[in-house]
């Protein structure tokens, strides 16, 4: 029998955790071109909030939630984008423990699987980019 955590808690915890890792680099929940004139920054998006459902009429007969948040790292300097991404990898990949602010919406994750997808460059914005997926395994 499993419960579903509120995605708002996920969002607040992702923001809290990422901001703590890359401080003082700004972290935003969604991309906005107005931010693109900053030297380096992060955005993130949450997706795949999903618990597998099992048979029967009992709503909480489900598996664990495995939400994924994508992190997009932007930097005018390529090495900055790689180093910020490395900071996230080193901090989150394989992490097990409290995720987010423990005194508010933080929750316990059994494991985080961080996956560097690819790096890129946007000639129009003049920004190097690195995209990463982080899967949370959440017992609840």
């Amino acid at each position, binding site marked *: *029998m*499993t419960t579903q955590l509120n995605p708002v808690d996920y969002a607040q915890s992702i923001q809290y955790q990422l901001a703590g890792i890359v401080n003082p680099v700004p972290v935003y929940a969604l991309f906005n071109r107005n931010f693109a004139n900053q030297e380096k920054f992060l955005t993130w998006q949450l997706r795949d909030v999903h618990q*597998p*459902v*099992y*048979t*029967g*009429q*009992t709503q909480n*007969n*489900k*598996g*664990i939630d*495995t939400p994924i948040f994508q992190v997009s790292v932007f930097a005018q300097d390529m090495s900055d984008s790689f180093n910020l991404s490395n900071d996230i990898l080193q901090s989150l990949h394989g992490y097990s423990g409290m995720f987010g602010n423990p005194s508010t919406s933080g929750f316990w994750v059994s*494991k985080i699987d961080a996956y560097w997808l690819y790096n890129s460059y946007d000639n129009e914005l003049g920004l190097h980019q690195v995209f990463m997926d982080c899967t949370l*395994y959440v*017992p609840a």
Partner: protein
Amino acid sequence: MALINKVLPGYVATLWCQTGATPTPLTPTQLETWGDVDAIVGVSAGGLGGGGIQVPVEAVPSFGADDAFAAYSIAGQRTGAKITTQNQVTSLTVTAPWNPADTAQLLIREDGYSGTIIRTYVVAVYDGTNTVAYAFNARIGGMQWDMAPDAEGKFIFTIHPVGSNEYGWSNS
């Protein structure tokens, strides 16, 4: 009440079992009598509840009877002959998302280590109004806990029906 008359998705099926460490399983007559089976099936599946508990399984596996026959080759005939023989009741290998404190899973764990406890199980199929029930008496064997790291932990066990005539179909 009417027998369900529609094709149903697999999600309508649930598995229930008697409570108590040393249950008294239903008799063959009771197993095919909804008025006896309904106490094991919970209200959420159209039963009365009170005498049973839901086993939280991922999916209700195939149940029924195994195939069994004798084959003969007869000289002079173009094909051989098959004669059905007494077949065995199918064992149900069940996967449950493991919750160490789940009451039903704890009961089944005790049954598995005992090896002798016979308990009545019911597969209930519920369409929101009516229920079809397949009730049978069984023991538990083959318990395993699978903690593969990319999903929830699984409690896997096999329900071995005692066979003979200790099963029955009924409906609300």
